[in-house]
């Protein structure tokens, strides 16, 4: 029995083995972080979980059922993600972006929508209320009606977090939530990740480089290098692990 588990996951692109026999499991309610130097295969693991890449070996289990199908099936199971390089819907407003996040909770069909029956109005207002809760939670009210295309990077990062939250996920995958953020914004991000875990009870699986943020929010940390696991444990254990130090700083003679 496990909440989320990866068993012997591997993928190769031609001759390159990007991820090689990685297994780990995430407990419900924890913040689990994957660290590792550039090219270690962290984002590749996220793309494997999201079924954007097909694994060459191994399997992914969520609530004891294998994760299979197309990327949209993953979202419908309750796994939401953010992207390292922000993938928002640029020519839509913040509100629309968050409403798109509600897609997996849609209750109306095409025919009802063509005539915009009262059922659609009711459903839309319910979706809007859910989105407004997220806007409140992340303090985005000021930007509600602005186009994403005109907003600064730091705000977009938060909107992406909000869009993932709007899907009401059970598991959230955060791909480098602090990349490109200044220290203040990183600090805010840490608060929100803590809140997501403690207030909303959402399990977080995260890839991150900023060790301050990692030690502050993570319950457990996994270190990867060249597609293989080199250490797993609490943030302090992993940070002082000789293999991790060697991976980052090179081997001492």
């Amino acid at each position, binding site marked *: 029995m496990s909440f989320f588990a990866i068993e012997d996951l591997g993928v190769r692109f031609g001759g390159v083995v990007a991820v090689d026999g990685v297994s780990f499991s995430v407990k419900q309610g924890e913040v689990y972080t994957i660290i590792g130097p550039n090219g270690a295969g962290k984002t590749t693991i996220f*793309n494997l979980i*999201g079924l*954007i890449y097909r694994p060459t070996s191994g399997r992914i289990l969520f609530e004891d059922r294998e994760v299979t199908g*197309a*990327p*949209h099936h*993953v*979202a*419908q199971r309750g796994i*939401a*993600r953010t*992207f*390292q*390089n*922000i*993938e*928002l*819907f*640029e*020519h*839509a407003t913040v*509100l*629309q972006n968050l*409403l*798109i*996040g*509600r*897609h*997996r909770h*849609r209750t*109306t069909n*095409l025919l009802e*929508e*063509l*005539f*915009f029956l009262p059922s*659609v*109005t009711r459903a*839309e*207002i319910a*979706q*809007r*209320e859910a989105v*407004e809760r997220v806007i409140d939670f992340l303090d985005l009210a000021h930007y509600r009606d602005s186009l994403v*295309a*005109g907003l600064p*990077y730091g705000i*977009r990062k938060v909107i992406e977090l909000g*869009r993932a939250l709007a*899907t009401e996920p059970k598991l959230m995958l955060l791909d480098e939530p602090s990349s490109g953020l200044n220290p203040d914004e990183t600090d805010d991000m840490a608060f929100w990740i803590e809140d997501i875990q403690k207030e909303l009870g959402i399990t977080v699986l995260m890839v991150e480089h900023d060790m301050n943020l990692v030690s502050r929010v993570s319950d457990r940390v996994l270190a990867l290098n060249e597609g293989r696991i080199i250490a797993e444990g609490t943030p302090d254990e992993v940070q002082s692990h000789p293999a991790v130090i060697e991976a980052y700083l090179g081997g001492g003679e």
Partner: protein
Amino acid sequence: MRFIFKTDYAQDIRLFQHSGQVFWYGLLLLLLLAAPYLVSGYVLSQLHFTCIYSIVGLGLMLLVGYTGQISLGHAAFLATGAYTEALLQSAGVPFFISLTCAALFSAAVGIIVGLPALRLKGIYLAIATFAFNVIVEEIITRWDSVTGGNSGKLLKAIELFGYRLGSQESFYYFCLALTVLCCLALINLLRSPTGRAFVAIRDSEVSASCMGINLAYYKTISFAISAALTGIGGALYAHKVGFISPEQFTLIQSIELVTIVIIGGVGSLHGAVLGAAFIIMLPQAISIAKGWLPDTIPQAGLQSVVFGLILVGFIIFEPFGLYGRWLKIRTYFDVFPFYRRGTFRRQRSYLRSERLR
């Protein structure tokens, strides 16, 4: 300047956001309803075409402007609708049913054409739809026994529930009603989850699928609805012209339809209607201008040159088309004297991870 105070979520969902919109759209509708009594028969005939092209433009706008799938083959859907209507009318099928069939059959063809769209993007999709256009054109030319080949097909006036729409006025009101209905249907669609899914696919496919949007399903739906509207437009077109033949549904026609969308303004329903009106008026404007031009300028082919120049001009100077220009003018007066040129400047877009697939 208007300030709108929002006190209710339903306010954002409503068809009209404020009383000003009700007034102006109401006035427009009144003018359009009064048009047969105000304008000459010739102008009324141009209004027929404007309505018909608006419907087609709306269909194409949904696909190109909202779902981000380019199509250079929409003349083929126009042909599908037109020929379905012509064949069913000559078989004695009532108009109400034959129009529905034209829409449904076009939608079915749209789904078939949409299938490669699940794998193709951008220019490759353009080429695939282009090829589709050529195939359909070839089929209607060669399949003499059904389509009449190059000698074409003749159509009679529409008969709606026993009432014959023979006159200019009655046909105009019918076209206008259909245009308004198509507009409403699309507005409804775009303010509901399906419409948002289209926009999501346009802006980022990876991200859309990670939000639980089934790319294959929504792209197919978009193609189907777009083709259905174009099919309805085709059926009306067939009745308007009264005679259809393969050379009306060539690639040039497809490009003209795409021009509607680009000149009108990609990503706005207003744009589809504005673009349609523009496309209909332009040839008249050119023929008027011809009288003033010196004889040294060759007359033949002038229209294509002007069309091309206008299209290129819009892409360079006003990528959001006529509607984008209108928004700028309106904002200028709204915030006068504080308008800044930077208001509508495109922001740089940050790095994106489109290389995933």
